[in-house]
């Protein structure tokens, strides 16, 4: 028993050290901008940089648009597959997994070839068009997480019976979607949304290749040209990701819909 405990603790400590030391190192380094004393100068420089504000604002906007797009695309799809096409579930699941297998750079090159200025839908011809294209790209990247989260949420309710109950009470498809299905998978949608947010904030490849002023390319730019600020940015980015994770936990814990009683 004692030995068991010892080895468990040892491996836990090793694991924690593996993750924590680089973070501590990065954090410590980010505080060293002023010679001989710890200070938050690097953070001040970064946070007051107008380019940081612009790129961060851009990425947050894109993340929110991606979440809306993802919800509009995934919730009805997952619902319809569960309700009417259950035999299609493995196919849809496979398709949603593809973004994990196909590198983002391949996807974005495909986009550029398909939607360039000489194509039938020249999305890359304008800034707005490129933004829309980038949002579609992000939606694709987030698809595996969003679909899985929503599908799991739908599993917890009896989709068929709830739909029929709503129909017999006179509800049409839009009412069923917005008043019955969406509220019941809201927790799942939110956890999918936070994951999407974290992915979009840190994404580099697509934004860089489509030449949009997003946070990822800015991170790279600073990293290549400055010493202390990249460390500060890395810590900030970690903080955002962790905040998202924490929010997922919080949302699922305080959800009003425990699965008890069914």
């Amino acid at each position: 028993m004692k030995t068991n405990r010892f080895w468990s603790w040892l491996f836990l400590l090793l694991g924690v050290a593996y993750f924590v030391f680089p973070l501590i190192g990065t954090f410590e380094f980010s505080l060293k901008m002023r010679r001989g004393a710890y200070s938050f100068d690097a953070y001040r420089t970064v946070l007051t940089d107008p380019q940081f504000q612009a790129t961060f604002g851009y990425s947050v906007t894109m993340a929110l648009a991606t979440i809306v797009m993802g919800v509009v695309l995934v919730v009805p799809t997952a619902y319809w597959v569960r309700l009417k096409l259950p035999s299609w579930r493995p196919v849809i699941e496979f398709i949603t997994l593809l973004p994990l297998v196909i590198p983002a750079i391949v996807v974005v090159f495909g986009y550029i070839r398909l939607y360039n200025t000489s194509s039938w839908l020249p999305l890359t011809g304008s800034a707005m068009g490129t933004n829309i294209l980038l949002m579609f790209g992000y939606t694709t990247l987030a698809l595996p997480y969003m679909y899985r989260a929503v599908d799991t949420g739908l599993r917890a309710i009896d989709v068929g019976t709830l739909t029929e109950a709503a129909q017999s009470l006179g509800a049409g498809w839009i009412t069923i979607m917005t008043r019955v299905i969406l509220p019941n998978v809201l927790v799942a949608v939110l956890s999918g949304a936070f994951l999407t947010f974290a992915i979009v904030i840190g994404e580099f490849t697509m934004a860089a290749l489509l030449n949009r002023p997003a946070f990822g390319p800015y991170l790279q730019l600073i990293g290549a040209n400055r010493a202390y600020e990249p460390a500060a940015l890395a810590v900030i980015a970690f903080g955002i990701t962790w905040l998202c994770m924490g929010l997922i936990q919080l949302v699922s814990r305080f959800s009003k819909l425990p699965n008890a009683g069914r």
Partner: protein
Amino acid sequence: MAFLEIANLQKDFGAVRVVKDFNLAVEPGEFVSFLGPSGCGKTTVLRMVAGFEEPTDGTISIGGRDVTRLRPNQRNIGMVFQAHALFPNMTVAQNIAFGLRVARTPKADSDARVAEMLALIKLPDYGDRYPYQLSGGQQQRVALARALAPRPKLLLLDEPLSALDAKVRVSLREEIRQIQRNLGITTIFVTHDQEEALSMSDRIVVMYGGRAEQVGAPFDIYNKPSTRFVASFVGTLNILRGTVTDPARGVVDVDGNAIQTGGELSRFAKGAPISLALRPEAAALDNGPAPMARGKIMDVSFLGSVIRIRVNLGQNTISFDRFNSPGSPPPAPGEPCGIAFAAKDILVLDD
């Protein structure tokens, strides 16, 4: 003209015909049960009336209006499902108000109707609870209130009691029947439980293999089953196999007992095999000099108020119930005994 008219209804799932030429006319305010084993098509007929399945052929009309091709949300029908049909994200009051909100009923009217419905199902203080905070029986009562709130023309109940435990099931079926009577709403009730169907219905449709085998009042279904299936499905039935000894006088030999049936059997030849059916409540022990049949007690189960006795005649056994009476202890297994029953209680089954 009947309120609900189902004519020549057919339904195919692929190559399988699950409902075959189903016809039914339901009068306003009537409570009709569809009774049958699973897979007999009873739920499919109900779902076609609700609009969840499209008939392959035939028509359904409600109140003189053909609804065969209408979508479920245009039919003004209230439906209660087997289980898990309350919206888990809404309170009891919001669940009941759902149909009213969809119909854009003003809030004051809707609130009043919800309060009225909560009183009707005797859960007046439960409006703020969520479905998961209710027991199974309470959930089904709320489901009933939700179905009734928008004042539907027709109420469909799809095995609403089968997911509940026995005690709740009995009390809730009385409550449902009472509410239905008070509101006078035309109701179709699907069940595989013959006791539910017999105790609640004005009329029963016994279904088998996609067909309506017999339509009639519970009393007639039980006492005058028209087909062999109805006879064996409704109630417990003793089936006796024997041979016809005197077709003109209707006498049948069962394990050496000459049994007098209720009528002549001229459609059978002398010596032809025949199946007779006998309800358990029609038989009784008879230790007099001339019982209808003689046999040996096989076993005796004491069930409290009732004692179930099985008697072996040879090839056949007859099981019947006797009320418990403290003055006369039940017979012991192995004892010889006589059984009495009236000739008119014997049903002749056509094979």
